[in-house]
């Protein structure tokens, strides 16, 4: 009896270690591959990889301005990454973060233009969050409803909706809201948020602002929602095994569209980083691929709020680092590296699990203990393809 209990404990420990290896190995492999590809690209341009990587680090983490820019980009990526990850936890792919982000920013700008000048930030901030989140929730919720009601595949509908929403915003901007000769709205006068430079002057010139704090709050709230509430539990249950969740009495369709709306809302609130914290107006194209990088952030962060913050910092560093090394090699190098990280990460996740399981099985076959038997293959969100 006692022995069996001990065996069970060992099995649990083994499972925990396996999970940790499974979570940490793929990002390491992906980064190594990206580094290798980076070396090749740098060498093809006739530069020294060491010099370029040093420049990349110095231009991002080596000075306050660079760090501020990294933090600014981290903020947007944390929102979009969290948005993709939340949908992923429900077993859905949100490829629409790009347009949800843009719609959120646009809605916030509209609210800002309607408000009288000079209202205190804390008073109107909830209004902005509601507007941006609401717009994002609509854009994200539509594919969710289409999936729940008609079974339309959310990957395709979110992609198509990206084009539709961005075209609609382009129409609204060019025909109604733009300031002459620009592609942005007039400036917001009410409730804009302070930049980090206002508190600590070496950040001067960098775009990092108080929305960073909002991002961290929402990251924490998402963690609490996912892992500490009933709705979050249901959402994860649907993501892991929809038929089982349905059998247990969960309304799967409802969870689907709620998750998509919530994911859209998070991405939409991300629009505040540019509109309320940085430029104080909506500008055509400000999302600039942050929605798509959100997929990368969610993937590398393993759909966990803490992992997402780390992954957002990583991708923000790469984005900003591109500008830092542009004198040596074309800044597009980092676009390639980001793509390579995603590709090798996606490829490494199922492969690492397979290899780890094989190793486990090999080690287990020598002994007779049940505890060393391979644990059930609990699929992580990204290991399973949605049909």
């Amino acid at each position: 009896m006692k022995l069996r209990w001990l065996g069970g404990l060992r099995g649990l420990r083994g499972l925990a270690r396996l999970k940790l290896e499974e979570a940490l190995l793929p990002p390491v492999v992906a980064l190594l591959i990206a580094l290798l590809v980076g070396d090749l690209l740098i060498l093809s341009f006739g530069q020294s990889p060491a010099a370029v990587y040093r420049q990349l680090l110095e231009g991002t983490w080596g000075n306050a301005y660079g760090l501020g820019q990294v933090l600014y980009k981290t903020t947007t990526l944390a929102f979009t990454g969290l948005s993709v990850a939340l949908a992923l936890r429900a077993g859905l792919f949100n490829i629409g973060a790009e347009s949800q982000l843009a719609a959120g920013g646009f809605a916030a700008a509209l609210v800002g233009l309607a408000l009288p000048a000079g209202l205190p930030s804390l008073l109107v901030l909830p209004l902005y969050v509601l507007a941006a989140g609401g717009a994002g929730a609509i854009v994200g919720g539509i594919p969710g409803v289409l999936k729940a009601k008609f079974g339309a595949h959310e990957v395709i509908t979110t992609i198509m909706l990206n084009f539709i929403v961005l075209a609609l915003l382009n129409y609204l901007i060019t025909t109604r809201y733009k300031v002459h000769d620009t592609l942005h709205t007039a400036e917001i006068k009410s409730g804009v948020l302070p930049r980090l430079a206002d508190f600590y002057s070496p950040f001067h010139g960098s775009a990092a602002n108080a929305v960073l704090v909002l991002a961290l709050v929402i990251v924490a709230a998402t963690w609490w929602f996912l892992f500490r509430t009933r709705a979050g539990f249901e959402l994860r249950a649907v993501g892991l095994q929809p038929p089982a969740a349905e059998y247990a009495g969960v309304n799967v369709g409802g969870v689907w569209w709620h998750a998509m709306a919530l994911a859209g809302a998070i991405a939409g609130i991300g629009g505040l980083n540019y509109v309320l914290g940085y430029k104080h107006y909506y500008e055509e194209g400000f999302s600039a691929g942050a929605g798509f990088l959100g997929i990368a952030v969610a993937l590398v962060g393993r759909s966990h709020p803490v992992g997402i913050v780390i992954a957002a910092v990583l991708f923000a560093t790469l984005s900003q680092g591109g500008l830092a090394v542009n004198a040596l090699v074309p800044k597009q190098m980092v676009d390639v590296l980001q793509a390579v990280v995603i590709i090798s990460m996606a490829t490494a996740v199922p492969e690492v699990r397979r290899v780890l399981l094989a190793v486990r099985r090999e080690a287990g076959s020598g002994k007779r203990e049940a505890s060393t038997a391979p644990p059930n293959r609990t699929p992580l969100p990204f290991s399973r393809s949605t049909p």
Partner: protein
Amino acid sequence: MIAFLAQTLRIAMPYLFASAGGVVSERAGLIGLTLEGYMLIAAFCAALGSYFGGNPWLGVLAGIAGGAAAGLLYGLCCIRYRANQVVVGIAINLFAIGITRFFLRLTFDSSSNSPRLAGFIETGTGFFALVRNPLVWLGVLSLPVVAWVLYKTRFGLRMRAVGEHPIAALSVGVPVQRVRWFAVALSGGLAGLGGAYLVFDQHQFTDQMTAGRGFIALAATIFGRWDPPRVALACLLFAAAETLQIHLQGAQLVPSQFVEMIPYLLTIIALAGVVARAVPPAALGKVYE
């Protein structure tokens, strides 16, 4: 009228090539999110081939090779290593944008475009210029050929089986993985022809020149319900809408942004099944082990 048809065909051409690739890929069970990336990489390779080879046919070959290589990369990740197709698909598109920009700087020392390329026809965009372009003939034939392969050949039957039910296909002796490998390479090559066409039509490579055409081709593939004749009609329909918009630009009847939305809106409506539900191949996107 002839000018209208000629322009429609001209605009439809990249869609026809790429959606032929889309049908091949999706019918074999691999999501066609990568079409955009295939086209962009192929367009750049075509520019390189014809610039350094001095012959547009070399450019076409380079384009096919570039598209097929991108397809094989997709295959390596998603067939060999069973990675998630959606993630890899999106990443290959990002990769295509980055890598073409990087090598644009490296080879032509420009961040926006390549030097002018002669292509097959020096000037003119009308009907007669169109019929003198051999790629146009290839493009018109691409979907009918795919239809023939898909419905009349053994390989096509196997491809459909692999896309609908890989286990059943395996049980009757179809080499599932090999069929899929062949399908992604073919898909990349076909979309690559679309990229090559684009480069020679515009007489140069420009940064991100595919501008979402791969996604319109994917939309046509879905809207045409993975059936080549219908997909061809969808391509022509989308192109006709664009042509009409260009002709009506002066009249300001419908804002161009709303015309841009048409393919995407129709695809969502088709997927939601309001009129007649579009049902994808059963094993599309599923991992096969």
